[in-house]
């Protein structure tokens, strides 16, 4: 067949014979990307079918990090589960802590004092900055721009220092409690955050200058991996990825929690939903988060930082536990039986850095949930991969993966 000469003019593609089309089709090659591969950001495995450079079919395989978090939750009290939420989206553990306790507080019908809300909000937004810094940093690496990663990780390191001052841990923060927080803000911490923000803002602009108008980055991302509005909604994609597709969906605006309605911020929305738009949306969200944190610090309320009246839910301060009988009993009951919840069902979603993190809790009363389902944004965001990568080039795979910014700890639970 190789000796046969065929004349085909460019533009004649539609009319080419079936026989010739068969010639063009190479042998399908199966390659296996991951589960341990730098561009898969964790343990995602892709079974890829290639025709030359073109991707014919992709099948993501997840579950390598499955730890049975939902089963574990059914076997422990509400407070005991908080450390497990650190390990969902481990890039932004503070945001998970807050989302989980908000869901349980919704079940209890409990509202925390304004100071507690403001502290939680600052936590959420710092977690968003931290997550997006990792997101844009490794996204840059995936497209071949190594330098951005160095910039963002220097800044993340400073954020980790702030988290350590606040919670005692850099990574697994477990800072929130049902009905409050583990402790109040340490002295001078807000000042440290302000100092960080002051030197951070110029760095964001530097990162922006490095890539946003970079010709190579442009060529690799514009028009690649575009998700349409309808597709994104049908797949249940949330967070920056959905906003990049042009849907102004932000739970902080539409279903506010933690007092988000008191602050002034914009929701960036993309137009084409391609990889480049997802970059732009994340960069802008970092700036908006800085704006929110500044406002929150300026008007942080005084007063109690935990729900004092919720005696069956929040453990009293240690000093009182050691000196007063009633508080001692309270503390004992809370530790052994867990915070007491009414029977019922709730579903709560919070706008996390990766998308909407949802908790569906079925309670039959008592201190242990009957069923706790975690709606993980990365799980939903990844489900579009087979559709998104079909027809891409091999070299686009890491770019698309980087632009989606997922975490397998959350996807696999």
């Amino acid at each position: 067949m190789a000796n046969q000469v065929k004349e085909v003019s460019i533009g004649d593609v539609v009319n080419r014979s079936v026989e010739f089309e068969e010639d063009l089709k190479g042998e399908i090659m199966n390659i296996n990307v991951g589960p341990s591969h730098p561009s898969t950001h964790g343990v995602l495995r892709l079974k890829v079918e290639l025709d030359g450079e073109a991707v014919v079919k992709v099948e993501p395989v997840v579950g390598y990090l499955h730890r049975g978090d939902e089963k574990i939750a059914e076997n422990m009290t509400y407070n005991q589960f908080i450390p497990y939420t650190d390990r969902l989206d481990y890039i932004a553990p503070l945001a998970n802590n807050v989302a989980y306790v908000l869901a349980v507080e919704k079940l209890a019908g409990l509202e925390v004092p304004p100071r507690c809300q403001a502290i939680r909000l600052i936590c959420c937004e710092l977690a968003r900055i931290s997550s997006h810094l990792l997101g844009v940093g490794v996204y840059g690496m995936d497209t071949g721009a190594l330098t951005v990663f160095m910039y963002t990780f220097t800044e993340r390191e400073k954020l980790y220092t702030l988290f350590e001052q606040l919670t005692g841990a850099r990574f697994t923060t477990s800072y929130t409690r049902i009905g409050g927080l583990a402790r109040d803000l340490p002295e001078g911490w807000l000042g440290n955050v302000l100092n960080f923000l002051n030197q951070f803002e110029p760095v964001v602009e530097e990162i922006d200058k490095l890539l946003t108008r970079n010709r190579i980055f442009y060529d690799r991302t514009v028009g690649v991996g575009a998700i349409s509005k309808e597709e994104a909604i049908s797949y249940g994609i949330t967070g920056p990825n959905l906003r990049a597709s042009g849907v102004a969906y932000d739970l902080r605006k539409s279903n506010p929690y933690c007092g988000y309605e008191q602050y002034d911020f914009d929701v960036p929305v993309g137009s084409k939903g391609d990889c480049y738009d997802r970059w732009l949306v994340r960069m802008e969200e970092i700036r908006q988060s800085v704006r929110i944190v500044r406002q929150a610090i300026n008007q942080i309320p005084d007063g109690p930082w935990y729900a004092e009246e919720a005696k069956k839910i929040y453990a009293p301060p240690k000093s009182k536990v050691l000196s007063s009988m009633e508080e001692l009993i309270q503390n004992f009951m809370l530790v052994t039986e867990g915070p007491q919840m009414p029977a019922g069902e709730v579903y709560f979603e919070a706008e996390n850095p990766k998308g909407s993190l949802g908790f569906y809790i079925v309670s039959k009363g008592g201190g242990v949930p009957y069923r706790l389902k975690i709606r993980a944004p990365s799980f939903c965001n990844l489900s579009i991969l087979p559709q998104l990568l079909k027809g891409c080039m091999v070299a686009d795979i890491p770019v698309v993966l980087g632009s989606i910014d997922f975490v397998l700890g959350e996807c696999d639970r």
Partner: protein
Amino acid sequence: MQDEFLKGLLESFEYLEERPSKDWPSVKCLSTRLLEFLKQMRDERGFDMLSDLTAVDWQEETPRFTVVYHLYSTQKHNYLRVASDCSDEEPPSIPSVTSLWEGADWHEREAYDMFGIIFTGHPDLKRILMWEGYPYHPLRKDFPLAGKEVELPAADVAEATGEKVRPAPMAGGPFHAPQGGRMSASEPRGSDESWNEKLEKPTGE
């Protein structure tokens, strides 16, 4: 406003039942009319996003499994919870909603994996979090927290190493006091006692 919405729904669809809920409007739908109802919700009431799909195992009750859908409207920003009981047989089954939302694909695979619910009409119903060939459905209430001993998924590796998978012992799992009864009568203990210092780890059968 939400009450009115729920009332309107119950009036226009006679096969719906109200469910107790602490937050969003919640209805129970017959599984035979489920697809029709969800399609109407999506096309006419603006609930365009399937936020979450999951199942609950009620243990002794019949029917044992309920599938719960959380719909979200990206226009009106509210949720609707729709629950539907699976057929009361083994394996339980319910119609798939993948024809309405592409995103339901993975959610249904997960519910199948964890509860063993068959979603009829699903294009490729297979395990997603556990591996292909795993024999149990771990989120069922009768599955012990400690897990059950199974063969290593890769038979050739097992043969070469002579090892089975050995999970770390949890000896009854995380500890808390039992609900109800006299506190003085019991030490805090794990709620799942299928594997502790005295009992052997449960085997396959």
